[in-house]
Every structure is written in C-alpha cells, then in structure tokens.
C-alpha cells in the first residue's frame, strides 16, 4: 500500500508557478528521492504534503488520509526535517526536544538521549547559539524522536559536515530496516544515488520521470573514453550506438549503448594506449537527460 500518493497535485501562487500535475507514489518501506535544481518545486511539494499549503488542484494523501483534511492525524506518524531550520531562540536544545516530544505524548528521555549522543548534540546550548549545522542536527533528532513511520526530509544534508552526513545516512538505513518510509529531497544526486530506491526528477514544477535507481544504474549507456598514441587514430571513428562523440587530440570520449563486444571490437582495430568504460554517475545521467529534455 502506498504511503504517499499524489494525483495531478498542483499548487500555484497567483500567477506564479509552484508545482503542476505532480503524480507520484511512495511505497511503504521505500527510500524515495526527490531531485531537482533549486526552485524546481521540491519544497512546494513537501509543504503541500504537510498541509502548509493548500493544493490548487489534484489530490494528495499520506497513509490513505487526505493531506488537507486529515493533516493533524497524518502528522502523528510523520517526522519532518525542513530545509531551513528556524526554532525558538529562547529555548535550549533540551527544552525544544522535550517540547517537540510532548506533542506526541509522554517524552521518551532514553530515545532523546540516544539520538543526541549519536549526533553529538549538546542539549544545554541555546538554540540561537547554534551553528546552521547544529540546528540541522536538532531538526533531525526532533523529527525522529517519536519513531515516525514516514520521514520527510527537505535537503537534510545542507549545512552538515561529511562526518555527520554519514551518520545521518547510517541512521536512515537503520530506520529503513525498521520499515520506515523516507521521502528525501535533494539537489545533490550522489546523496540520492547512495540512499534511495527510486527517484523522481522534478523540473520547473513538473515531474520529468520516476525511475528505479537500479534501473538508472543498469542503463546500457556507458561513458567511454580512450587514448591512442597515434596522432590520427580516431579519424573517421563512428560506431552504431555511440553518441556525443568528442575528440580532443589523441583522446576520444562518447556515450555508448549497445553490445560490449561490438564496442571492444571497434576499439581494438585502433592503436589504443588506454581505455575507460564507466557507468555514468547519476549526476552525468541527470545532466545528460536534463539537457535533452531542457
């Protein structure tokens, strides 16, 4: 059963575009990436799902409950990390975490202490004394305190140093094993590649496509680069399945979709000094697709 389901979800701000016809389904236990450049509509989608914004059209549900009408009920089971963290400056970290926990019932001090220890959070510090990264850590901890079934993370790694990012990813892996569903927005594709099962690519408010990370990885497109010692080794090089062929001096680079044997055979006819056949990173795939669909 899907945890998040949207159907032609649209949000416009007067004449300004927000999101248009966003349709996606996030299944239980899945880590779902939501990727796109800044201003593409990631935060608008998340804020509509959380009931901050009222949809202009379409529908959205979480746990089969309408995101507008049953928002409070939904949020009992959701943890949210905003892109930009703004908390009450007069509170200390401990006060904020306890305040947050009380909205869900009796505070669980054990859980709070364990999470704070994991993220090396000093709970005695005042919120307004914290760095951006430390505020983000507080946001992550408070989102996890009540053991949510769904985690919605809007650019969760921004402001975090690499060490803490790794801790976050480890924690998310553990939560996933517990059966938690994660909806994760980012403009950093390697994060999504690392964490997610599926990814939706959004551009200018519209979903371009939804793909399995495994599918993207197993695409037949390979990035090929070869170097030859002979000066005119690549003259007249052409191969069915090769695209975007770029030749610079003794080096040639291209994208290839086709049988490996044919590729090797075509290259072996020439005096090759070195060869690289690589799976493209998600960044490269994304930029490749983005240019095509731009």
């Amino acid at each position, binding site marked *: 059963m899907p945890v998040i389901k949207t159907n032609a979800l649209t949000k416009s*701000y007067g004449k300004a575009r927000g999101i248009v016809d966003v349709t996606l389904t996030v299944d239980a236990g899945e880590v779902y990436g939501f990727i796109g450049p800044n201003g593409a509509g990631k935060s608008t989608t998340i*804020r509509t799902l*959380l*009931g*901050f*914004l*009222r949809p202009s059209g379409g529908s959205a549900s979480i746990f089969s409950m309408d995101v507008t009408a049953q*928002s*409070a*009920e*939904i*949020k*009992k089971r*959701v*943890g*949210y990390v*905003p892109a*930009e963290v*703004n*908390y*009450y*400056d*007069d509170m200390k970290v401990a006060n904020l975490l306890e*305040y*947050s926990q*009380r*909205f*869900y019932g009796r505070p669980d001090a054990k859980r709070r202490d364990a999470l704070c220890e994991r993220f090396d959070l000093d709970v005695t510090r005042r919120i307004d004394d914290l760095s951006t990264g430390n505020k983000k850590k507080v946001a992550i901890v*408070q*989102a996890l305190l009540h053991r949510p079934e769904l985690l919605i993370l809007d650019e969760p790694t921004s402001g975090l140093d690499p060490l803490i990012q790794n801790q976050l990813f480890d924690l998310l892996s553990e939560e996933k094993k517990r059966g938690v569903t994660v909806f994760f927005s980012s403009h950093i594709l390697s994060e999504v590649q690392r964490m997610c099962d599926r990814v939706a690519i959004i551009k200018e408010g519209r979903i371009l496509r939804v793909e399995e990370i495994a599918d993207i990885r197993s695409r037949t497109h390979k990035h090929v680069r070869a170097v030859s010692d002979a000066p005119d080794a690549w003259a007249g090089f052409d191969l069915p399945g090769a695209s975007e062929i770029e030749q610079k001096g003794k080096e040639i680079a291209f994208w290839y979709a086709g049988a490996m044997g044919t590729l090797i055979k075509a290259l072996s006819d020439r005096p090759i000094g070195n060869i690289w056949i690589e799976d493209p990173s998600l960044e490269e795939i994304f930029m490749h697709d983005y240019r095509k669909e731009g």
Partner: protein
Amino acid sequence: MLLYLRELFVAKKSLLIWTLCLAGLMFLCMAMFPSFSSGQEMNINDMLEAFPEEMRKGFGMMGLDLTQPMDYFVYVYPYVVVAAAIWGALMGATILGKEEGEKTIEFLYAKPITRSYIFVSKLCAVLSEMIIFGILFYGINVLGFAAFAEGAYDARLLLLLTVAILLIMLIFMGLGFLLSVFVVKARKVMPAALGAGLGLYMLSIFANIKDEWTWLRYLIPYQYFEGIRVLREGGLEAKFVILALGIAVVCLVAAWLIYRRKDILT
C-alpha cells in the same frame, strides 16, 4: 494545553512590564491625589475651569471634580485605556504572526495539531493575559485608593472601569488577530497597532468636541466606556458592551476562518 502554556510562559515578561507600567501609572497618579484634593493654595477645579471649554470637552474633563478620588481616577484613566488598547492590538497582531515572521511555524505545523488548535491556544493565552492584567490592575488600584485616598472608592465602579478596559482591549485584540492573518512581519504590525490606538484616540477627542456627531461614538471604541460616563451613569451601557463583544467576535471568527485556509509561506 501545551501550546497555551508555552505562550503564557513566553508572555510572562511582557505581561509583567505592561501591567506594572499601566497599573503603576495609575498608582503614581493616585500618589499625587492628596495634593490635588487638599486645595490649600488653589482649588484644582478652578484651574480646570480656566481651560477652554473645547479642551475640557475633548479630553473628557467636563464636570469632573478632581478633589474626589473616583473623579480624579477617571481623569487619568483615558491615557491608560489608550495604552492598554495598543497593547491589546499588539498582542493580537503578533501572537499568530510571529510564528510565521520568525519562521518557527514550520516546527509547529509539523506537529500533530490542527490550525484551529493553534488559533484557539493562542487566543486563550492572550485572553488569560488580559484577565491576569485586569485582576492585577484592579488590585493595585485598590491599594492606590487605600494608600492615598483613605480608601474612598466605589469598588463596583472601579471593577466596571477595569472591565471596560478589558472590553476595549478585546476589540483591539480582535482587530490585531484579523490583521495578523494578512501581515506577519512584526515591523509592519507595530506601526499599524500604534497608529490605530493613537489615531482613534485623536478621533475620540474630536468626537467629544463635536456634540452633534453622536454617530461617531459607535466608530470609536474609546467612546463606548468613557470614564466620566461610567461614573455618572453608574455602569456600562449595555449596547456598547454588546457592540464591543460583537466586534471582537466578528474579527476573531473572520481571522479564524482565514487562518484555517491560508497558505503558510515561510
């Protein structure tokens, strides 16, 4: 209850400061009452008579006997009412909007609570502050009368004058709530609250001078429960009590209906 208690906790300092300022002002003025009432050198009422009639009418001094404690009280009273009205407007205008202005609303909205819960919790917190203020204001004034006017005061009228302040605050607070669903930035709300509080007071002075423009009374909350009128008539006019409550309720219901449906843009 959680949000309500949090709001009360946050408001404690400003509640204390406003209460001390407003009740303290009345107390200090009462401390000067003995020198007004003794009339050793010159009768203060004769001095008042020397002012132009328009001025006495405008500032609500007509017919006041400043040697009497309650009359003296209502002489100072309008200034406290104006300040209390501004405070009421500020409370109403900032308690909802500050969460959006300071962007803490994302934290609050991610919790399993409805917008109505947020609205009602914050409204109850403001109402509680007003009631606490009213009790302290009344108590401090009783002390003032006891200390400086030999306890010569009418407890019922003092209570009604305190209730009148709360009713006027209620109107301004309701207007503030309504404003706050449209304007969330504190720096924009402050001038609006101050402008409304002082602007209406100036209009009230004008309404006092122009006897024939009685309809103006309905538009100016300060006119509903003028201290001198409360004293002379021995109570609050029922139609103005209903009007005050009506304005506050209409503003609050409108604010609630809009707040339930508005987009939260942070």
